[in-house]
């Protein structure tokens, strides 16, 4: 593979390419292919190239003070949910369509410190609410494997950009599956860390007790490198965990002998289509060949996760999104009489239909007389769902299953019925409710040539072990090396 982060880093270290050359190549590719994919909502070549020049100077030992790291000069793309100083930061919404962020999110700061130039901001479902990228104010992202299909969501722009080789890696966020499901739909690798590992400072909030940022790239090894940069304590996020810095790549080369992989019987039942089931079963057989042992487990309450999630996430969203009122930043309706009218018209015009639905569900379940029946009951189910995982991890090291029940669906196929759209996250949501780490990696293709993803779920803070298993699997298979049928995605670019 010639365009992984690992490979680009080696080229830069050996002096065989400069960051400016790499960024020019990717910017050119974005200019040529983005009109058909719509993966990026903002690019700023001058800014990117200035950052690339600074990275090259740093690597050359110029008078810039901070020594270069292994990824200095490797470009990256950022989901448009991260505030980035001087960049339009829209969160996929009309509400923030004019918002140029005056500050950097913690994640953005970390990538700047590492010297990784930003190629642009990637498209996403509005306020990260969606599973297909069709709720974006800036139009849907197209799946590079078949442009009549969705890339998944909400981090669909990041996923399509990585899959289409418009960037070597990207940031994403995951509240109910928003890194893992698009990773599965586009044939890339994506990781949602344990809740609290990556700071949420400057990451526009959807459901604060569930939101977590993570890396998206071609390989598990690349994800480990990116997570090393993103993770770490940040006092500006009160839920950021105070833990020692760890090297997420430290266990990549460990053998899999003795690994106990749990298969939840609930994830292999009805609703899983033939090709996906077959691909995941083949992946299990492959891991067994590499020394893993299989244990059957039960997650009996996971079937309740979609219902509990669609109470808890909208409740938190209705509170978080109350800040968008047309007073301090973002969109304000042009015509209004009094203050109440200004609020109501601003929010009616600034938010799209899916965001409004979720705010209304949240307002309702938190309102007087309904709190116990909905919000409190959902919090109790959350406990039961999390407790299932505690029991499961007594008998296995990792849990494996499909990431999504189907492969990428057609644009427009599920937009008429919100409930049908919600069910595409049926295997990923429980992980967010429990706060566990989860990842998706490619494990095959369906009959139409669309990628299939398998999900690994780890115990709290088991990211290094998950990345180890994914990396060992990727050493033995080549699904993650397959590129979609776009110009120049096969063959040597670098």
């Amino acid at each position, binding site marked *: 593979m010639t365009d992984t982060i690992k490979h680009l880093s080696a080229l830069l270290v050996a002096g065989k390419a400069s960051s400016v050359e790499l960024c020019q190549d990717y910017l050119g590719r974005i200019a040529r292919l983005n009109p058909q994919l719509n993966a990026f909502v903002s690019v700023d070549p001058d800014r990117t190239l200035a950052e690339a020049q600074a990275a090259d100077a740093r690597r050359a030992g110029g008078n810039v003070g901070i020594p270069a790291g292994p990824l200095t000069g490797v470009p990256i793309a950022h989901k448009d949910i991260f505030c980035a100083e001087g960049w339009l930061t829209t969160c996929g919404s009309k509400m923030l369509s004019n918002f*140029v962020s005056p500050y950097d999110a913690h994640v953005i700061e970390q990538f700047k410190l590492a010297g990784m130039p930003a190629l642009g901001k990637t498209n996403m479902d509005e306020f990260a609410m969606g599973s297909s990228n069709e709720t974006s104010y800036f139009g849907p992202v197209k799946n590079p494997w078949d442009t009549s299909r969705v890339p998944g969501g909400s981090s669909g722009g990041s996923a399509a950009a990585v899959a289409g080789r418009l960037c070597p890696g990207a940031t994403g966020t995951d509240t109910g599956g928003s890194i893992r499901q698009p990773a599965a739909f586009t044939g890339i690798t994506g990781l949602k860390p344990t809740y609290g590992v990556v700071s949420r400072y400057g990451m526009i909030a959807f459901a604060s007790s569930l939101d977590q940022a993570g890396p998206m790239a071609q390989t598990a090894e690349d994800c480990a490198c990116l997570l090393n940069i993103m993770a770490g304590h940040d006092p500006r996020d*009160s839920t950021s965990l105070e833990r020692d810095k760890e090297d997420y790549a430290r266990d990549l080369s460990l053998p899999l002998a003795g690994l106990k992989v749990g298969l939840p019987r609930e994830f292999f039942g009805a609703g899983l289509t033939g090709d996906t089931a077959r691909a995941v079963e083949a992946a299990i057989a492959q891991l067994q060949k590499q020394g893993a042992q299989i244990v059957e487990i039960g997650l009996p309450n996971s079937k309740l996760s979609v219902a509990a999630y669609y109470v808890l996430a909208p409740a938190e969203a209705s509170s978080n999104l109350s800040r968008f009122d047309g007073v301090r930043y973002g969109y304000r309706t042009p015509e209004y009489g009094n203050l109440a009218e200004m609020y109501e018209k601003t929010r009616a015009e600034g938010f799209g239909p899916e965001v409004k639905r979720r705010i209304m569900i949240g307002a309702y379940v938190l309102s007087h007389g309904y709190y116990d029946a909905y919000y*409190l009951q959902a*919090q109790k189910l*959350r406990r039961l769902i999390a407790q299932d995982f505690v029991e499961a991890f007594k008998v296995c090291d990792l849990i494996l299953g499909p990431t999504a029940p189907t492969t990428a669906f057609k644009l427009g196929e599920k937009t008429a019925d919100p409930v049908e759209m919600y069910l595409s996250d049926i295997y990923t949501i429980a992980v967010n409710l429990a706060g566990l780490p989860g990842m998706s990696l490619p494990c095959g293709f369906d009959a139409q040539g669309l990628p299939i993803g398998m999900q690994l779920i780890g115990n709290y803070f088991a990211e290094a072990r998950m990345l180890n298993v994914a990396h060992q699997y990727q050493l033995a298979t080549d699904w993650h090396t397959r590129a979609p049928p776009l110009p120049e995605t096969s063959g040597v670019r670098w």
Partner: protein
Amino acid sequence: MSLSLQDVQRIAHLARIRVDEAEAAAYQTQLNGIFGLIEEMQAVDTCGVLPMSHAQDLSQRLRADVVSESDHRAAFQAVAPQVENGLYLVPKVIE
């Protein structure tokens, strides 16, 4: 349960989102569909289960009582819809 058009208008008002009559009817159908999905929660006996509000059992950290923020007023107000003399402008609140 099933939401009436009146319920939808009440929720929209709570959420400070203007919804006209045609929209209200569409929301009524969609929200009822979503509540149909949520309703399956009610069948579960959760007697004695402690509600879980957060993934990590954390207490809030305390920090030293010192000024940690610098003045960003000009930068922050540069992105505001309407400001004057360092103040955010909104329609008159008290008549």
